[in-house]
């Protein structure tokens, strides 16, 4: 319990520091980002007036205070160039949810399929299933994703007669993007669970479990799988949260209106407030994800106490 509390406090502190640093960095950006297309047409006085209006000429600590005030109210300001004068929260809201849906669907599938495949590979290490799985893992990692995304798009739309582009009203249009998103993740989960299980299988306690008369299957289920899952549990919350950031390839390939690539676009268009909001969002997700992961891991692994975090690995 104490561990959780301290871990929580530490995360909040990190978050505050990150938010502040991001804010201060954003103040150092060129001011064009606050004007949009009108920048060149305005004279100096008009520019100053506008900046004044936005509160950007106040001393930095006042700005910071105001910024935090707004933040607490859930106000991230308005977009400037991306969709002028629209509240950031409104822009992001829909996009985040779209990406989250795709991400979660794919994550769910990847976990189920990937973990099963990995378990199978560990169980039959060196045999057919392991070799087949290894081929897949290597293939999925070695071939650039875009290549098989394109192949999938070209062939699967023809063979299975599936829609090429995402359409909100057509559930069938989900299949291909989710499939694409899952391919690499399945390989990823399969690879790690296999690795951790093989690690566990070589440990002495497995030998003792066998000597006391447990069947292989029982050893796998009661001892090995559970223990192998613990190190993976650490990254699970972050993986779940990160689904909101979408996939730049898949989303643009299937024209899904998600968050994938939004940050890049925002930077290119010099939309300072949008950039700020996205950076804040992603870094908080990182921090919260890690924290949840640590807490999750601590609930599984009794050896983890403050001071020797990660000592178990």
């Amino acid at each position: 319990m104490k561990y959780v509390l301290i871990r929580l406090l530490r995360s909040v502190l990190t978050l505050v520091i990150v938010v502040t640093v991001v804010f201060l960095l954003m103040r150092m950006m060129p001011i064009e980002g606050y004007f949009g297309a009108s920048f060149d047409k305005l004279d100096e006085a008009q520019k100053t007036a506008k900046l004044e209006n936005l509160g950007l000429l106040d001393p930095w600590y006042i700005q910071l205070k105001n910024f935090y005030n707004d933040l607490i109210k859930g106000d991230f300001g308005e977009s400037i160039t991306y969709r002028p004068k629209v509240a950031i929260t409104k822009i992001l809201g829909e996009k985040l949810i779209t990406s989250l849906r795709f991400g979660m669907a794919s994550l769910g599938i990847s976990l189920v399929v990937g973990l099963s495949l990995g378990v199978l590979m560990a169980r039959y290490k060196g045999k057919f299933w392991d070799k087949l799985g290894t081929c897949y893992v290597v293939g999925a990692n070695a071939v650039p994703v875009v290549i098989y995304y394109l192949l999938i798009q070209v062939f699967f739309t023809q063979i299975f007669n599936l829609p090429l582009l995402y359409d909100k009203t057509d559930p069938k249009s989900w299949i291909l993007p989710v499939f694409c998103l899952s391919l690499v993740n399945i390989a990823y989960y399969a690879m790690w669970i296999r690795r951790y299980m093989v690690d566990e299988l070589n440990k002495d306690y497995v030998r003792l479990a066998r000597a006391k008369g447990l069947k292989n299957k029982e050893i796998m289920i009661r001892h090995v799988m559970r223990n192998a899952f613990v190190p993976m549990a650490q990254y699970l919350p972050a993986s779940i949260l990160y689904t909101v950031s979408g996939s730049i390839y898949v989303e643009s390939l299937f024209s899904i209106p998600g968050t994938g690539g939004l940050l890049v676009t925002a930077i290119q268009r010099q939309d300072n407030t949008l950039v700020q909001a996205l950076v804040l969002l992603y870094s908080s997700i990182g921090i919260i994800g890690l924290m949840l992961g640590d807490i999750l891991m601590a609930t599984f692994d009794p050896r983890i106490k403050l001071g020797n975090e990660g000592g178990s690995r």
Partner: protein
Amino acid sequence: MAQKTIEEIINSEVILSVEDLVIKFNLRGKELTAIRGASLDLHKGESLAIVGESGSGKSVFNKSFMGLLDANGRIESGSIIYKGQDLSKYKTEDEWIKIRGKEIAMVFQDPMTSLNPLKTVGKQVQESIELHQNLKGEEAKKLAIEILNDVGITEPERRYKQYPHEFSGGMRQRVVIAIAVACNPNILICDEPTTALDVTIQAQILQLLKNLQDKYDLTIIYITHDLGVVANVADRIAVMYAGDIIELGSSEEVFFDPKHPYTWALLSSLPQLGIKGEALYSIKGTPPNLFKEIKGDAFAPRNPHALKIDFVERPPYFEVSPTHKARTWLLDSRSPKVEPPLLIKKMQEMGAKRGDIID
């Protein structure tokens, strides 16, 4: 010494009988013979020590009784008779499950890694009970706590809920022993149960095993490369060299009247018997290459007393007494008389006086 007399042991029923066991391993396309025709009768209720240097095959020999050989190993020939069944013919997991734990249980060397770090100690003991004693839930838990108490863990109710990392090495070995005992086996194999522990704890663990032997009616095999460790607990000692048992006798016979030059060498290298100020004896040479076929007596190349025949023909067992036998040509009536080393002669004199056995 609370041991049974050697006659009592020899006359009690044979619980496990190994005959001419040959075990081979495949290693990178080559074949290695780890056990070369070893035979052994284990008597009910005894404690037998198997000693021998590292690599002599002690673990492999014993693991084969439980079907725990590594995947690249196999029993080539010979038999392991237990309760009328030949275990050497067992192949499937279903067959071995009937033996493992229930009939023969094992305690391994390293208590620090023998327990699952993510399960409570109590649950791991309870698992054995639920597997082999037809008890479930609360009843099984009660028995688990009782067994924890029996292996000398204080406040067993509280300790039941703790995890392995909250235990010291000695305490963990007690838990491992509890797990083995909880299977309610007939035979308990202890593979270097104290090697990883410090000396005072070693003695405690050995004492514990001795107590448990009476209480749970166990036949115990101690595996060790340290003769000194088992001097006090073993009724009989089997000396293993290069995959064969080259001398077998009661503890006293092996200690005070050893016949095989390898046993002489082994005893001479005991620190407990070393003479102050003199360098400790160490055996010259290295054990034979198990990849090659061994002709004659495996120890011959390292044996300063080796005879010509030692390099040609494998010696049979020569009986020294009804309970003592050794595989060495030196015992053949035709061999020249070879004097054992000084230290061994001193031991023999001590034995003749039937003085107190080294403690």
